[in-house]
């Protein structure tokens, strides 16, 4: 069984904008609820929300077909929901339940579902993604691997080792840098010298960039990029300049308020809502809320794992 985001997306009725909006609304509603649950003390530990960046996930992942692979990072909720459309499994996971995505073992940052993988250690997944793409290449499959990384993660040397190998060996992998201008508390100009796109290009691969939080625009651009990688069997390096509207994890936002305010105008949800038929956005927001309600009710009813299950593992999916 494989997830086929493109088939699912293409099979839905309605204009592209509405369908993208519906997904973004689900991600937003999901994460706002998550933050509420943390505030209310129902959740414990940490989480990283994707608020403000939803257009990236929906713009890219809806082009993936069955068997395509996604590697995601600490900020994975949006990627996962666009990929799977299964909020209840992620919610149960974050709530530590036995029937969560990975039985409560991974929590918010460490999830796996079909061909989707995430890890909370910065950088390592980039090499893992190249390996996944090489596995595909060596076995003659036609799948594409997409890996998401942040601007800050461009600090990790393994990223460049990975770019070099992907380029040398011709790995069908799409590197997506989500440049949200900050790495935790550090602004991009204190973490990154030179030019992001030039870094990709210096390793001998096609590379380009886009500054946008417009889901439709991103969707259109990435359709071509995903197919380019699939057809050429070569890597591509794409930088999306965007912005994170929430704190890094929880209650740790010390950025200049005025800067954050300025970027609210680019919030991908209102930006797209304004172009939908009147009332549609509100309706889709309500639907998203209802799905989150439902997911939460389900997740709350799920059991916690048993301490004795430490060594066991659910049957391989």
């Amino acid at each position, binding site marked *: 069984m494989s997830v086929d985001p493109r088939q699912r997306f293409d099979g839905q009725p309605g204009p592209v904008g509405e369908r993208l909006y519906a997904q973004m609304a689900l991600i937003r509603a999901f994460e706002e609820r998550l933050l509420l649950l943390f505030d209310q003390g129902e959740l414990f*530990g940490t989480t990283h929300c994707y608020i403000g960046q939803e257009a990236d996930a929906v713009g890219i992942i809806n082009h993936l077909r069955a068997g395509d692979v996604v590697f995601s990072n600490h900020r994975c909720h949006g990627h996962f929901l666009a990929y799977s459309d299964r909020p209840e499994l992620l919610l149960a996971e974050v709530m530590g339940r036995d029937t969560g995505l990975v039985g*409560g073992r991974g929590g918010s940052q*460490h999830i796996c579902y079909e061909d989707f993988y995430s890890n909370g250690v910065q950088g390592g997944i980039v090499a893992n993604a190249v390996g996944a793409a090489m596995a595909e290449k060596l076995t003659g499959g036609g799948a594409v691997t997409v890996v998401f990384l942040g601007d800050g993660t461009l600090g990790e*040397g393994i990223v460049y080792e990975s770019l070099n190998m992907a380029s040398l060996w011709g790995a069908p992998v799409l590197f997506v840098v989500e440049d949200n201008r900050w790495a*935790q508390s550090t602004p991009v100009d204190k973490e990154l010298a030179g030019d992001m796109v030039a870094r990709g290009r210096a390793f001998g691969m096609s590379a380009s960039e886009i500054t946008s939080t417009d889901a439709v625009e991103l969707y259109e651009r990435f359709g071509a990029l995903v197919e380019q990688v699939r057809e050429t069997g070569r890597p591509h390096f794409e930088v999306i300049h965007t912005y994170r509207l929430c704190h890094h994890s929880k209650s740790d936002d010390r950025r200049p308020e005025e800067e954050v305010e300025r970027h609210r105008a680019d919030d991908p949800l209102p930006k797209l809502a304004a172009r939908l038929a009147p009332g549609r956005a509100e309706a889709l927001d309500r639907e998203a809320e209802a799905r989150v309600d439902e997911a939460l009710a389900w997740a709350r009813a799920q059991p916690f794992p048993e301490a004795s299950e*430490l060594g066991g593992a659910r049957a391989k999916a």
Partner: protein
Amino acid sequence: MRRPNVLGSLNASLHALMEADRRVVLMGEDLLDPYGGAFKVSAGLSTAFPDRVLTSPISELGFTGVAVGMALRGLRPIVEIMFGDFLMLAADQLLNHATKYPWMYDGKATVPLVVRAPMGGRRGYGPTHSQSIEKHFLGMPGLVVVAPSPFHDPGALLAASVEDDRPVLFVENKLMYARLLRGAGDASMADVTVRSTEGAFPTVSLSYDGFEEGELTIVAYGGMAELGLAAAERLLIDHEIVAEVVLPSCLNPLDLAPIARSVRRTGRLLVCEEGTGVAGWGSEVVARAAEECFDALVAPPVRVTARDFPIGNTRVLEDAVLPQEDDVVRAARSVVESRKMRVVGG
């Protein structure tokens, strides 16, 4: 005056160190105020010493390597690894650079580097942000591994580490940051006799009976120190077992003497650590004790460690993996109840 907590002690020490010595430089991720580092150990420093606090890109190997170069050239850099879990990324700089240069350059260079690494779980941070992996750094020739506890003066240990000419890995248990220091004069220590060895990295020994008739030596460090003492208290009250608690601050090189002295009194050894057990610090302590206090042991030594799994995100799995006070009490009871004796002959 309120007793400081571990975090405050470390932070104050950093301020004092940077004030006193211009060679002290701080490097790591997200160090700048108002953020002041992920756990706030570095708070205020970038404001007070803007030139000497370098907030770095996410480049653990690289900035540790930069710090090694600084140390080679006369500075005294302190590196903060945001989560100790990421220390493996920097490990080659410790193994093949920082610790190699002084010896392989035949004393022509020193590398007075301190790498601070917050370790430990019990905060629900999941498998990659909760580990205690310091054991993997034990026994690199030339690397000193120091771990404060609330029963030591963490700030003084940090100062001694910075003043040491050798590279030091300084392991800070995350849960411990908020704990108040527990010195000899504190109310919480009223019933406890405290002894300490001399030197920059002392071992503190605690006893509820003045080291008179201990039946068991509990050895612990860092985040397990308070658990060890709490277990000793319960053992005394609930089970009438008198345990001495021995808390080294220097994991390597290890001063076995205070442990050996205690084992020679008690005949029984229990070692706790928050990390997993295999080839861990506890293995070394048990092995050393078996070698050097063989005749004194009247029962098999025992280790209480994390179980041999990653640390799950959900609380029930995290609790099941990490060693708990109950585990210490249970293991202590079983080792004391195995009242084997032996007679030493020729």
